[in-house]
């Protein structure tokens, strides 16, 4: 019996029970479509988070004073003053793995321009900060080494700050804003970056020389943090080790002492986020996979009914010369046909659904070709797996009994 005839027979059998075939297929359609959609959502979220992290600077390293704990005891605020300017200087002087290093001190307060005001944070940094955080100056210019040395009252502002303070559309460069009563002259405006993955507005920033913030705003001599940027993402770990070494030496820590600073890298964050998203994807896909499994059981169920219903037909076919393998292939092809057709429709539905979510709900969606191949492959295997047993049962029928089956 050749394959063309087998397909004809299977198609005819399905055509004889259109509604039943369709309902069985529906299980597979829903299963495959949901696997594809769920994977697309999972992969889309992962991809969007990854791109946002890399926008924030994926090789960024953040150094903060004070370990979270020391010997199991949460440290007091005084322990948080461990980072000094000398630490920053030494890192800059000795580094081999950092492309840029910037001290950070920041202060929150009300920013006022004319009749407008808004709450904001002013970040005391150096010029390297732009490179570390992937900012760029759109209008005007960044403050200089000279400004840092003289603790000049100048600042560079983000787009959100401009939008909220300069409501009548005037050019902010050269204007003076006041932060906690201290006047700052705007010398530059940053290019907009939008929101990051944590929902923070990256344009709601005011950058000023760190010396200005230390002396004129906070009146402190220590640093609240140091931000650095490894020369490449792959060198993040070496960069962290290097900083650790310098800081431990500077802080005269003994071998058995814990670090009195904390170093976090974006890579760490990025891998944490990625693994979270992977987990989410697996979770979504397995829920969808269960529906595919249920669809497969539907096929098995209906094939059983079909075999029982067509016992006489099987008996007849056998008595006129069908071998066991002919009967087996006939029913197997029928179930594969159901699952493959269902799978194809499911792929189309899944892609349409993913696109609807993308354009309708504005959700990040990423359809990977492997997710389509995977779900389609799984569904074909489902057809074979769940069709096998009923088909085997049909092939093993005794023609003498089958032909007289009532």
């Amino acid at each position: 019996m050749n394959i063309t005839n087998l397909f004809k027979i299977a198609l005819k059998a399905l055509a004889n029970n259109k509604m039943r075939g369709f309902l069985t297929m529906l299980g597979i359609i829903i299963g495959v479509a949901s696997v594809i959609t769920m994977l697309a959502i999972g992969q889309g979220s992962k991809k969007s988070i990854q791109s946002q992290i890399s926008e924030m600077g994926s090789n960024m390293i953040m150094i903060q004073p004070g370990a979270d704990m020391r010997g199991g005891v949460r440290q007091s605020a005084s322990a948080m003053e461990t980072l000094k300017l000398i630490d920053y200087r030494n890192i800059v002087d000795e580094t081999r793995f950092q492309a840029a290093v910037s001290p950070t001190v920041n202060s929150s307060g009300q920013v006022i321009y004319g009749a407008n005001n808004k709450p904001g944070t002013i970040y005391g940094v150096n010029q390297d900060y732009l490179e570390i955080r992937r900012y760029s100056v759109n209008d005007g210019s960044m403050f200089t080494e000279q400004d840092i040395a003289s603790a000049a009252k100048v600042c560079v502002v983000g787009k959100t700050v401009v939008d909220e303070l300069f409501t009548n559309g005037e050019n902010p460069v050269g204007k003076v804003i006041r932060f906690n009563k201290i006047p700052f002259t705007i010398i530059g405006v940053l290019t907009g970056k939008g929101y990051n993955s944590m929902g923070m507005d990256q344009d709601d920033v005011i950058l000023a020389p760190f010396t200005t913030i230390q002396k004129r705003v906070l009146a402190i001599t220590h640093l609240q943090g140091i931000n650095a940027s490894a020369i490449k993402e792959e060198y993040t770990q070496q960069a962290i080790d290097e900083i650790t070494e310098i800081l431990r030496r500077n802080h005269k820590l003994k071998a058995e002492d814990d670090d009195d600073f904390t170093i976090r890298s974006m890579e760490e964050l990025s891998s944490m986020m990625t693994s979270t998203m992977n987990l989410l994807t697996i979770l979504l896909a397995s829920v969808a996979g269960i529906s595919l499994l249920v669809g497969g059981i539907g096929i098995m169920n209906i094939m059983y009914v079909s075999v029982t219903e067509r016992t006489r037909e099987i008996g007849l076919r056998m008595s006129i010369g069908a071998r066991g393998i002919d009967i087996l292939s006939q029913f197997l092809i029928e179930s594969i046909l159901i699952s493959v057709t269902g799978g194809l429709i499911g792929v189309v539905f899944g892609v349409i659904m993913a696109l609807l979510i993308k354009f309708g709900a504005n959700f990040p969606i990423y359809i990977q070709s492997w997710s389509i191949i995977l779900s389609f492959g799984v569904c074909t295997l489902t057809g074979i797996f769940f069709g096998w047993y009923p088909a085997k049962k049909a092939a093993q029928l005794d023609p003498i009994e089958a032909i007289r089956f009532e």
Partner: protein
Amino acid sequence: MKEIIRLEHIGRDFHVGDEVVHALRDVSFSISEGEFVTIMGTSGSGKSTLLNTLGCLDTPTRGEYYLDGTPVRTMGKNARATLRNRKIGFVFQSYNLLPKTTAIENVELPLIYNPAVSAPARKQKAIESLKAVGLGDRLNHKSNQMSGGQMQRVAIARALVNDPAVILADEATGNLDTRTSYDILILFQRLHAQGRTIIFVTHNSDISLFSSRNILLKDGRIVADTTNENIRSATDALAKLPVEND
């Protein structure tokens, strides 16, 4: 005459629980080409078992069965399936046509399992076969659009399509009224006249009047094997039936 069927000391035992049922005990006979044999017996006589054996659906416990010269007893399942496909035409009591399927497609069925026959040849043979049973005008009728007599004709056409060595009919008139039964017997007699070998298994002794030879089974043994010298014509029998006016 060429010998189509030879049974040598055929025995068939069934195990029912602890008991052994001897369905056939030492059955021996042979059938030559062109014979129209009725095998008769009451239920329990072993005629179904004999039919299954002759049809290569079942294998005997003892003895040997030669179909067209081929020993069947030691054959495997698949080999027997192929042998059935090439050598035997089955006609069943309840027709066993595929539902919602046209006459041609039903008749084509045995040839589908013969890779040597191409699709166009298959259709051609099916049409010829249907014409031979007088259904040339019902080629594309579906099985549910036909009467019992017509369905049995399609079944006979299906049995003829592979040009079998022997046609095995199992109570082929059992589901039909008298008039239609005679129609079918006329067809069988015509096939017989064309030189076909036919074995008709039945419990209805009337059928034996129309065949050339009768074998009577009782308790798994042959109790009579007679040649019918005076074959009754089914055409005459039909003509003598009182005309129904209702």
